[in-house]
């Protein structure tokens, strides 16, 4: 179970900016990939994939080939994803135990995972499982996804509820994994983690560079020519 599911309950209506961010993140998925989508915003990425798109979705409680979510009246009581949502299968799905599930993750068979974040550092550190004294429900499967997926991207709001930047120079919260994040998608921007720190890759429609700078807790480089808009 991913650490952030209490913060992102499944069925809230999303703002246009968040919807655009999720649609942009969906383009991160290349044909043929094996992908684990963390609880919350990442789960919704699947709604933006073409119907016939060749991809294998993995959930750590023991399923490859996740099909559409089902309402309670059509749900199978034995078939959930790691966030507890009732899901379905696709032709070619496979079930397996929890050891096999994480064997896939740790041995490098997961091409991509999309996770939520409390904080990200400019070195790609990720903190998303614990706020000491406030929130510590356990790390679940998040640490292995973050440490071992071949590519880890983060989907998150650019700032927390108090308006503090989530993209920081270093993380103050306990880490989930060091140096694991390649790219961050927010409602304001797509920002890469490079050996030189943050690099703005794309900016959301209607957002200014100054606004991104204001909301980001560390410096970032910008493209030499125009910044692509998503």
């Amino acid at each position, binding site marked *: *179970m991913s*650490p952030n*599911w*209490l913060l992102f309950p499944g069925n809230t209506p999303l703002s246009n900016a968040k919807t655009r961010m999720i649609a942009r993140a969906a383009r991160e998925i290349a044909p043929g990939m094996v992908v684990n989508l963390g609880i919350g915003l990442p789960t919704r990425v699947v709604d933006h994939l073409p119907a016939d798109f060749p991809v294998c979705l993995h*959930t*750590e*409680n*023991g*399923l490859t080939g996740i099909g559409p979510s089902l309402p*309670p009246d059509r*749900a*199978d*009581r*034995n*078939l*959930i*994803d*790691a966030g*507890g949502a*009732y899901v379905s299968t696709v032709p070619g799905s496979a*079930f*397996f*135990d*929890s*050891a096999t*599930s*994480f*064997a896939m*993750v*740790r041995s490098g068979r997961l091409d991509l995972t999309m996770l939520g974040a409390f904080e990200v550092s400019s070195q790609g550190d990720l903190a998303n499982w614990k706020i000491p004294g406030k929130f510590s*429900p*356990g*790390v*679940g*499967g998040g*640490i*292995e996804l973050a*440490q*071992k997926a071949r590519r880890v991207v983060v989907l998150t709001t650019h700032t927390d509820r108090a308006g503090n930047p989530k993209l920081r120079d270093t993380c103050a919260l*306990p*880490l*989930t*994994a*060091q140096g694991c994040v390649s790219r961050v998608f927010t409602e304001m921007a797509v920002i890469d983690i490079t050996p030189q720190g943050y690099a703005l890759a794309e900016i959301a429609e209607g957002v200014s560079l100054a606004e991104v700078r204001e909301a980001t807790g560390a410096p970032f480089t910008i493209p030499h020519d125009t910044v692509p808009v998503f």
Partner: protein
Amino acid sequence: MRLPDKRCDIAVAVARIKDSDTVMVGGFGVPGTPMALIHALVDHGARDLTLIKNDANEPGMGIDHLLKSGQVARLITTHLGLNSHAIDLMNSGRIQVEFNAQGILAERIRAGGAGIGAVLSDIGIGTELADGKQVVEVDGKPHLVESALRADFALIHADRADHFGNLAYVATARNFNPLMAMAATRVIAEAETILPLGALDADAVHTPGVFVDHVAELVALSGEYAVVQR
């Protein structure tokens, strides 16, 4: 030759559990959680238990009954996010909680079931999950010693069993069940259906009966096994 018959009454099997025993409980959320065995353990009343389970179910369900009855001293788990009652017990010090990365919990249990002393893993290095763990180098890289977990009892939920205790699971109700079914001195399985010898295809057995000591058929499925209405 014929294979021994291991059918048993649930209450008789569970009555062997003693105060201070360690008990593994299958399940990830509702699927695979042996609700009937848990109720039998509440009725039996053994106290000061150490439970090993992926999660703490939800308030009023599954092992929350054992938490409520005060029978649990210690919980080895990965995530309590859906059970605010369990988090309260942890925060107020009434139960001791050890968090494991989910796949590492699975491997530690599997190691116990495989007669392996420990696995060496790099998961959690650089995070507080590594605190206090012995470090061993393999090929020049640091690894944590993740010691095997065994239990006095394992409580397992299967879809089908035969008289010898061969077990088969369905969908994501498999999860930790096959691992725990290898890792306890006494393994008690409840099954939705018990079949005569020969009715389970030898290639489709998920847990060979050699690992299982007692099987009990569920006469009815309580509402706790049903789809959760949220």
